[in-house]
């Protein structure tokens, strides 16, 4: 029996650009906080969208309170390095050595996995120190998540000795334990997001030991017509009924019917992609669904609606 999602300690949320990864991350973190878990949510690619989803002002490396029980931060690898150095090497002055920071920044750009390890390391550190019940991460998108999660393993094989190698060991203990850590893949029922999700789940299982905890399908359209109703809809569009409708409610009804027809087509296409997703993902992988929120921009209201939808699916 896999550990329930919110009972884990560290959740990485990934997904293709444009599927609503950040909103789902924020919703999940909010749900955990509402369930009484002390929660930290962290944005890895500092784009500011997490702050928008929580409506809490700009986020920094030092976590700030947003909602009751929910702290939020933005990852910054330079700050992560400074914190690491001051904690591990007990060199408090180091933070002031500008050239060192710049040098490291350069090495971090060029040497593989350094930025990733500083990111994953900070998150694992929060888990190890038990500062929170749960850490939810708005992680790298599908193209880069494998690199991010496999960085400790990669560093382990590249670096034969030294402190980093020692450090990667305890990180791996946290990351590789399915009771502690899970990856959640957010997708939407469209062609490319579904393709990428199927590929990503395969890759995550093959190339990392991190447990794939589930897939969240965002933007699921409501079923428009029940059994037999679509046939009725078609018949209403025939000449006789249509003329009667125009008489009764005005010529604008044509556009209402067109809109319904668009909605039916969209729903059908998305249902096909959803079927493909189900068929090609491992059968034991839980799927959760979040409905399309038609009128909502990114913001606290839609984050709360997502949290509610996730609550109905997960609890």
């Amino acid at each position, binding site marked *: 029996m896999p550990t329930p999602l919110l009972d884990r300690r560290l959740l990485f949320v990934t997904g293709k650009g444009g599927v609503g990864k950040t909103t789902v991350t924020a919703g999940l973190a909010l749900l955990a906080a509402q369930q009484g878990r002390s929660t930290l949510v962290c944005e890895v690619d500092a784009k500011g969208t997490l702050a928008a989803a929580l409506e809490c002002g700009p986020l920094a490396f030092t976590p700030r309170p947003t909602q009751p029980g929910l702290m939020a931060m933005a990852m910054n690898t330079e700050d992560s390095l400074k914190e690491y150095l001051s904690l591990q090497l007990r060199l408090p002055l180091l933070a002031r050595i500008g050239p060192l920071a710049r040098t490291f920044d350069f090495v971090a750009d060029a040497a593989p996995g350094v930025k990733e390890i500083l990111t994953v390391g900070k998150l694992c550190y929060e888990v190890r120190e038990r500062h929170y019940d749960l850490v939810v991460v708005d992680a790298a998108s599908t193209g880069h998540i494998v690199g991010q999660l496999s960085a400790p393993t990669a560093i382990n094989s590249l670096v034969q000795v030294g402190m980093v190698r020692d450090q990667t060991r305890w990180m791996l203990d946290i990351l590789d334990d399915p009771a502690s850590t899970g990856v959640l893949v957010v997708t939407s029922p469209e062609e490319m997001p579904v393709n990428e999700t199927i590929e990503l789940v395969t890759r995550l299982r093959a190339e990392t030991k991190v447990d794939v905890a589930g897939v969240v399908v965002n933007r699921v359209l409501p079923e428009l017509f029940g059994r037999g109703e679509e046939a009725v809809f078609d018949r209403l569009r025939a000449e006789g009924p249509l003329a009667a409708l125009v008489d009764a409610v005005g010529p604008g009804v044509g556009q209402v019917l067109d809109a319904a027809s668009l909605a039916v*087509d969209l729903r059908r296409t998305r249902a096909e992609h959803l079927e493909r997703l189900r068929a090609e993902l491992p059968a034991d992988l839980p799927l959760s669904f979040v409905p399309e929120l038609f009128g909502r921009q990114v913001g606290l209201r839609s984050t709360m609606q997502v949290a509610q939808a996730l609550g109905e699916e997960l609890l």
Partner: protein
Amino acid sequence: MSPARREASTSGSSTEQVVASATTLSAGRIGTIDQLLSAKEIAITCGSGGVGKTTTAAALAVMAAVHHGGRVLVLTVDPAKRLANALGLAAFGNDETEVPLAALAAGAGIRPKGKLVAAMLDTKQSWDDLVRLHAPDATTAQRILANPLYDNITGRFVQSHDYIAMERLYELHSSGRYDLVVVDTPPSRNALDFLDAPARMAEFFGSRLLRWLTMPYRSRLVTFASKPFTQVADRILGSQFLGDIAEFFTLLQSMESGFVTRANEVGRILADRRTTFVVVSTLEASPAHEAAFLIDELGRRSLHLGALVLNKVLPSTLLDPAAQRAAAALDERAEILAAELAPLAGADPAQVGRVLVELARSFHDLRLAAGREAEQRLELGAIPEVTVSVPYLAGDVHDLNGLLAIGSRLWQ
């Protein structure tokens, strides 16, 4: 009528097109994407992920090949499988493959004027080729290719895709084999990364840090300035890893002049007057925000913003007050209307009533979304002169006819 057939019957001959577009020209300004592409040699689609950049690039290339003639190349980064199949790109690789436009001719009665060639971006292979090109000798090339850091750097880093996409673009354009090269940009954390990639590459080779890194490891130990770093780095990373890094960068440095010259040329081609940028977005908040930023940034860098393409746009008729009134009436009077309509439609009144209520609800949902999109469009602010909307298409594009249908929307 199939989309392609509709396209064929509306677009007419190219002479008609030229005449028609000439009349819309004001003071020599470019009024349509059709004109834009006929005037440019490189078109780069950019925007945030999931907005349809790849499909837009492919549709533009198909249209240019069909209507303008000549040899058109589309360089795609990560096409959906069926789109790749439609373009004849079955396997990954840098090979340039001719797209069988004859299939269009047979299906839709269109006579393509030119040839379309498609290529996919293979980052790894492109890097290997570059190393072989710039390395002073075959042995050095081999040593670089075999270095464990090389694999990691070229394979893993987002920036490496950005640079390679621009590098391939340069190579294909300067080969002189194509009249137009349409290129899709890789998904990146920041939509601007690809613009900065050539300069960053040149900067990287010219930096003091690279020289510092490539100093023999031992002599570095005694350099006073570098002492704190070396000590710390040694404790953190271990000397063997630092040694690997130093060796790798020493090898890389042997390619400096070749790489820097090339990166500068690649940078120049982006600013060339024959190059244009097509910003692609949807009217959702975060892609639109990214598009607005990109538009500003292109302006700031004096790069040519050719057009803005808005994809998946909901029909504006959703905002029609008459439609809204009709929907409200359907909802309020569902029961009465159902009794009246049921015999006409030959259906159960209760069922008709439910359908009418659903129609109203569905309209309401989509109208909310359309209203949000209209707001978003206003927020885009200073949008370029050539702005095209492509409607929300229910199906995905997976064949040439589909690309042509989208292309004909873009052409208007």
